[in-house]
């Protein structure tokens, strides 16, 4: 049962990924990406990370990609404004061939790990409680630094927007 779910999610994720890079319309690509991200969320759940599953659905699929979709719609891009991409497919094929050695290398490296059961662990592992304990006990400083980073990006976005106004004016 579990591996059917895994296989299904994996196929959805890979299909979504290919869809994303192959569609010429950004809107279609974004929707393909949502498929991939939700599938990944499911795989997180398979890996005993229920909290991350939630975060993935809510934050990624819910917030970030929604923001992306909003921007795409906001810019209201017409088809003729999209860049010409004549060499897209050939580049993908060449790139894929070039990436094969890299993938083989990584997989060979992980292949040396001993086999171990990866079935879903009990309630406690990956729950909000244990996640929170981990985060606020050991990772408090990085957590606070992330808040600073978010603030900085917020300020950055505002600065970009304001510059734009100045230039228009």
């Amino acid at each position, binding site marked *: 049962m579990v591996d059917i779910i895994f296989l299904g999610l994996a196929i959805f994720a890979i299909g979504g990924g290919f869809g994303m890079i192959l569609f010429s319309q950004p809107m279609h690509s974004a929707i393909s990406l949502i498929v991939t991200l939700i599938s990944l969320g499911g795989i997180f759940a398979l890996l005993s990370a229920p909290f991350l599953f939630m975060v993935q659905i809510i934050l990624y699929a819910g917030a970030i990609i929604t923001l992306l979709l909003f921007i795409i719609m906001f810019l209201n891009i017409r088809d003729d404004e999209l860049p010409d991409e004549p060499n897209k497919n050939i*580049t993908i094929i060449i*790139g894929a061939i*070039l*990436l094969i*050695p*890299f993938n*083989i*290398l990584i997989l*060979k490296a992980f292949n040396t790990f001993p086999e171990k059961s990866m079935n879903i662990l009990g309630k406690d592992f990956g729950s909000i409680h244990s996640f929170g304990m981990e985060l606020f006990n050991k990772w408090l400083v990085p957590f606070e630094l992330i808040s600073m980073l978010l603030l900085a990006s917020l300020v950055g976005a505002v600065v970009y927007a304001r510059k734009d106004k100045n230039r228009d004016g």
Partner: protein
Amino acid sequence: MDNFLLAWIVLVPLLSSLILGTMYLYSIKVTKIPNIVFSMFALTAPFISFVLGVSFFFRLLENSDVIIYRAYKWLSVDGYDIDMGFMADQLSIFMVLFITFVGGLIHIYASGYMKDDDGYGKFFFYFNLFLASMLLLVLANSPIIMFIGWEGVGVCSYLLISYYYQDSENVKAGNKAFIANRVGDLGFIIAMITMFYYAGSNGFDYINLELGMANVPVEVLSFIGLALLIGAIGKSAQIPLFVWLPDAMAGPTPVSALIHAATMVTAGVYMVARFHFLYDMIPNVGLFIAYIGAFSALFAAIIATKQTDIKKILAYSTMSQLGYMFIAVGLGGYSAGIFHVFTHAFFKALLFMGAGAVIVALHHEQNIFKMGGMRRKTPLVYFTMLIATLAIAGIPPFAGFFSKDEILLTAFGSGEYFIWIIGVITAVLTAYYMFRLLFVVFHGSNYKENRELHSLSKNMTMPLVILAIGSILAGFIGVPLLLGGQNYIGIWLEILNSKALHVEHSIELYLMGLNILAAVIGLLIAYKKFFNYDMSKVPEYTGLIWNKFYIDEIYDRIFVDKLKKLSIFISYKLDINFIDKIVMGISNGFIRSGNVVARLQSANTRMYAFSMLMGISVISTYLIIVMR
């Protein structure tokens, strides 16, 4: 008293020169500093050094042990140390005494001579540095420290000879002196290296070298001796490296006095005396030195008889007298040679100062046949010059007589009669050309009777008087036993003299008489020819002797022209067609390839990512193959 004061003999003039140099820079950059401030430093320094030297002299009188002061470790290579060491023995302290004394008097004289010059501070900066270098040369305790002073003297002589650098001829003369000295320095360096290789295993100071030399084969010692001799010849202007000395007259007259009397040229003689332990072991090389000295003496004296430039005559006379000194030290009569160095310092300084005074008085006229009649105009200069001329000619009881007599006695006593004959002939010539100078300049009718004379300051005349007294008295420290005197200098420097001379007293007396006779013959010839000389026309000289045996021309033909052709070939052919093309070709190649490579920077990020991917791919492939 402490040994560290030995270092201060050198340090005082050195510091003074540094202060003077700084002040001079301040003077030309910011505000003008009055000459009196410069004089204060410049004239005090030799005096302090002299006082220190005297104190060491008295210390050596009480206790004749060599005083050594090691200031600090200068070089340390793998446990082999070379100290910045100073050594005071009888020889070096004796040199210090008259260098500082005569040098100090020349300083005083120069303060009068140069008082209108813009570069007053600069001049004394060089002067004090010159003195410091010479003192370092003399007081060094190892050849390598001596070499520092040696090079310092060379640099200062270059700076001072080309002091009036606005005239390119003077700069050329400075270059000539520097290059000729360079040839000698090469010999010195080779000698030092050989000495280090063969005899330097225990240490490189004189004492250890002397011990180390005992086991060195004679052939090597001869080689060292000859190489050192080349250095000495370069500094002391003997055949064949003398060409710079007459040209060195391009500098101001006090410079000539300092170079010829107290410093620089005596360095070669001093060095031979310093390495007496070496030359004692190789008498053949010593004989060679003596022959070089003899021929230089004769050669210079012959040239001097036909010169018309007052300073050139004196320059050749210096070379001639240095030849005497080389005869003495070459034949092992070190005390006689140093004695002549000592007396020569007095009368040659006096001669140059007197000549300088005459030149200044006549508004920088140097041709003796355009002077004349100066006896009435400048009686004091005449009188002092007369004393100096009597001294150099070897008329008793003036200084030159005793020292020259001792040298000729050494030559005769060593059995080198040929050298002795040359010495006597040179003595005749010396008397002749010196009195010729004296008669033409001071007697006779005045060439320009009604000219206004430039006044001479007290700073210039006072040293003349002191040196004149010195020229009279200097000889009495070495009065031979025969005349009932005591040869103090021989006793003082007796550690140097290895062999005693055995000359019958009666023969010694004959020789002395012969010397006096030679001087008088020279005097009489000069008197006959030049006393009341008709000054209305300036004689035109031509011929072999006037042209200095064409030595300069021969050197030009042999060395300079060939070198020039080589230089032109390298500069205009090799450099432009070969080196430049390679260098410029390489640089152009880099520029072009840089432009090509820069095109890769297309600002296309996807291209960059693709290149990165290719790199990753290649590296991964390699790793897969390797890590199988």
